[in-house]
């Protein structure tokens, strides 16, 4: 544990922050602009995982384990979310035989 903590601390905290914010932004942009729904799901996962990375970094810099416990919760919830998301995708695929998001335009003003 001590080794991992000190290994994480070799890299300055700002670098973790920038990396995670970059990953998060890529995820947001992907969700908003990609048309393939599978890619959208992956982008959501990427956002959650960038938060996980940042939490682990903060946690070891503060020597406070609660941040890492939070990571566990995020992982489990993300798995549940992806399971539901994939099921929705399969349901959609069976009805419209496509996973392109542009087909989702039945609900409009």
């Amino acid at each position: 544990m001590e080794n991992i903590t000190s290994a994480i601390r070799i890299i300055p905290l700002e670098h973790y922050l920038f990396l995670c914010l970059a990953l998060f932004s890529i995820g947001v942009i992907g969700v908003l602009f990609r048309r393939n729904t599978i890619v959208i799901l992956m982008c959501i996962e990427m956002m959650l995982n960038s938060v996980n990375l940042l939490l682990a970094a903060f946690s070891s810099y503060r020597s406070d384990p609660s941040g890492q416990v939070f990571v566990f919760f995020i992982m489990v919830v993300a798995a549940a979310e992806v399971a539901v998301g994939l099921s929705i995708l399969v349901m959609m695929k069976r009805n419209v035989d496509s996973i392109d998001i542009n087909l989702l335009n039945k609900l409009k003003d």
Partner: protein
Amino acid sequence: MNSEYLILFFLLGVILVGGAIVFSMFVAPSSKNSAKSEPYECGIPVKSDAWIQFNVGYYLFAIIYLIFDVETVFIFPWGVVMRDMGLTAFIEILVFFFILVLGLLYAWKKGALRWV
């Protein structure tokens, strides 16, 4: 150690295997036709491309596996504190497992584990 033996072993291997291949090239009769390039030379004809889509039946197993696989992540932090907390920790993890088993039982009763 005796690295000479290792070198000798490699040399022997190369000579024997290479010699056998070269020898068979001269001796064996050869015939070239299109059936030779099939994946299964014994005669089963190939139906389609190798990149086929899997049956959707697999997806339900995958999702159930995904959930139960990730739930076990909670056992790691439990393992760290188990010794300090004693019996309470044991009872709590039993409750956790009980809830997980309830979920699995439901999936089983619902027929999600049946092979289609």
